[in-house]
């Protein structure tokens, strides 16, 4: 047998699958007329009004219990909705992180008062969270974070430091940050904690950073003597490392690590279908794209089933993410080569703009959520090499 066994095959329960038709109908209306190059931005496109419209239909906080305003439907319901949102290229960025990570994290590690305060607002799309892990000198080496939250005699924290690459910080109300509450960076995993930081306050500066496509979805966030109440701590003091890793399993497991280039694929397919004659190479590429999507989706369903069973499939999620981003990155390269193979071709402007955007941004697919090399290191540990 394999020394690191594949997870069992899993399928979507019928009651969750039944959500799909309604989601499709909603999206067809909500996204009507939105050009492909805009839809290709899907999970960097933040539109709080769109997110609230989803909340109205009960499609946020799907895995959260009813007593906190959730739908109590679990990970597969979220999987169905996530698939449809991403395939359609909906602007999901406002609620994406909140729904996928911050909500489940608060449910799992939060105090009862925190759950009662935050979760219903999350489910209603009233508040949004961002993730404060990376810092200018702590990217892959997350344990080296320097942002400090120092306990004051009255139990409150004094927060100083800087976070960077924080997706949607400018749109969000709160950040869940990994900070040092004791010791020094050399202490590594010890002395790290997670705190909830209300972002709309004077001692915090949020500077949006433009990306190479001219969008400003991530930001640099500076904390200047921010005072946080004692109950800003989430989970246990000093348990930040373990918590952050559980959170990353949520982050890496979903269909979002497979579908980032799907708007480009479907725009290209529509173009191919409009041509009088197809090259065999193009047909073969279409078949390859379908084939790999199928096996990635099966892997993603297996990881989802494992999460639904209350496990933390950290290594399997890493494996899926690396394989999935490889696929997402292969797409713009292959489609570009296919389109440019015919110098006399006349592809529509919308397709070319979508291609340009997806090609330009594709290197980020294997950076966000942990780089390729770091994930492969985790897999190496999982198979017992380190």
């Amino acid at each position, binding site marked *: *047998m*394999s*020394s*690191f066994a*594949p997870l*069992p*095959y899993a*399928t979507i329960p019928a009651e969750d699958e039944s959500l799909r038709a309604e989601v499709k109908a909603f999206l067809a209306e909500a996204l009507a007329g939105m050009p492909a190059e805009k839809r290709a931005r899907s999970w960097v496109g933040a539109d709080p009004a769109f997110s609230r419209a989803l909340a109205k239909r009960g499609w946020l906080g799907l895995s959260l219990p009813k007593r906190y305003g959730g739908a109590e439907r679990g990970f597969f319901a979220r999987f169905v909705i996530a*698939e449809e949102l991403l*395939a*359609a290229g909906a602007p999901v960025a406002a609620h994406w992180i909140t729904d996928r990570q911050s909500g489940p994290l608060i449910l799992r590690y939060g105090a009862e008062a925190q759950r009662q305060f935050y979760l219903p607002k999350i489910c209603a799309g009233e508040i949004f969270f961002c993730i404060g892990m990376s810092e200018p000198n702590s990217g892959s080496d997350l344990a080296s974070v320097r942002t400090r939250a120092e306990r004051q005699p009255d139990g409150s924290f004094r927060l100083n430091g800087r976070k960077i690459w924080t997706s949607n910080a400018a749109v969000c109300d709160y950040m869940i940050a990994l900070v040092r509450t004791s010791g020094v960076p050399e202490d590594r995993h010890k002395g790290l904690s997670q705190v909830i930081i209300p972002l709309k306050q004077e001692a915090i500066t949020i500077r949006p950073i433009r990306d190479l496509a001219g969008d400003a979805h991530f930001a640099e966030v500076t904390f200047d003597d921010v005072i946080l109440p004692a109950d800003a701590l989430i989970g246990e003091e000093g348990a930040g490392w373990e918590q952050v890793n559980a959170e990353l399993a949520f982050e890496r497991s979903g269909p979002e690590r497979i*579908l980032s280039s*799907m708007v480009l*694929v*479907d725009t290209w*397919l529509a173009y*191919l*279908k409009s041509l009088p004659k*197809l090259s*065999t190479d*193009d*047909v*073969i*590429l*279409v*078949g*390859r*794209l*379908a*084939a*790999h*999507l*199928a*096996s*990635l*989706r*099966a*892997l993603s369903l*297996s990881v989802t089933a494992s999460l639904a069973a209350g496990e933390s499939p950290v290594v*399997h999620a890493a*494996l899926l993410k*690396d*394989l999935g981003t490889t696929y997402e990155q292969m797409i713009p390269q292959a489609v570009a080569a296919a389109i440019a193979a015919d110098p006399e071709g006349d592809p529509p402007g919308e397709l070319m703009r979508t291609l340009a955007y997806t090609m330009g941004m594709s290197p980020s697919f294997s950076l966000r959520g942990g780089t390729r*090399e770091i*994930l*492969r*290191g985790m*897999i*190496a540990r*999982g*198979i*017992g*090499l*380190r």
Partner: protein
Amino acid sequence: MTDSLITETADRLMADHVTPAAVRALAAGGSPAALWAGLAESGFLDALASEEAGGAGLTEMDMLPVLLAAGRHGLPLPFGATIAARAAIAAAGETAPEGIIALAASGRRDGGNLIAQVPAGEHAEGVLVPDGDGAILLSVASATVETAGDGTACRMAWNGANGPRIAGFDALATGARIEAAEMAGAMEAMQVTTLRYANDRSQFGRAIGKFQAVQQQLSVMTELVHGARAAVHVAAAAPGSLDATAAAKVTVGEAAAQVVAIAHAVHGAIGMTEELDLHLLSERIRRGRLRYGSERHWAERLGQAVLASQEATLLDFVRNRVFS
């Protein structure tokens, strides 16, 4: 039987009979009789046939662990093919011949002749050959047989071929699905073997598995092995979907090329020797890629299906046509 019980039984069966020595003896032209007798005794031969027809009524999904185990041991005989053939023959109300039954990848009428390309046909007694929208069951004894020499397939020709018709049986697709599953199994074994080697072999004073460059290659190999397993799961869950079979053969075949390359890279020169069993797995995988249509064949068919379909998105196509 539960999934893990089938896995255990199949692994024990293969370990007992499909030894490296047995595989080598077959490759040298030895008789498959003793090896086959051991496999036949297992009771798996009629596992896919319905209970009314005297079988066990298992599904392809139930039987996937058996194919994976066969692949892990590099079994060169058409065991999975015989199991599928016996079920199809029983379902058609016909009687299956004793012994090994191979599935032909193609059948071409040329005047009064029927010419077929038959993977592992050199060991078989019966063959199901594609013909029209089904297959016909023919005996090897009445064919002229030309072995290809590289073990991929042999060419068989029947003059005035006549045999029971098995309507609706797609020998090419069934063969492709079985081949993909056995390749996925062989890739799992390669991963285990390579991992063990990376822990045992030292250079520069430490196990080569401690070098990050080697670790990253083994991580990629693990990803590909998992991806291949997922692909054959999808195909086994939807044996009626030609698109699922196509997806599996493409995914597994493409992954196989990389997995074999990494396994050999990590083994260094010793991996190139005859004495090491590694090449029995590479050999099994090489044949699998060439049998029942390559990645290119299946990708083209799948691509045509996508482009001809009315599904609004590629994801819809995959959900509706590959997953069900």
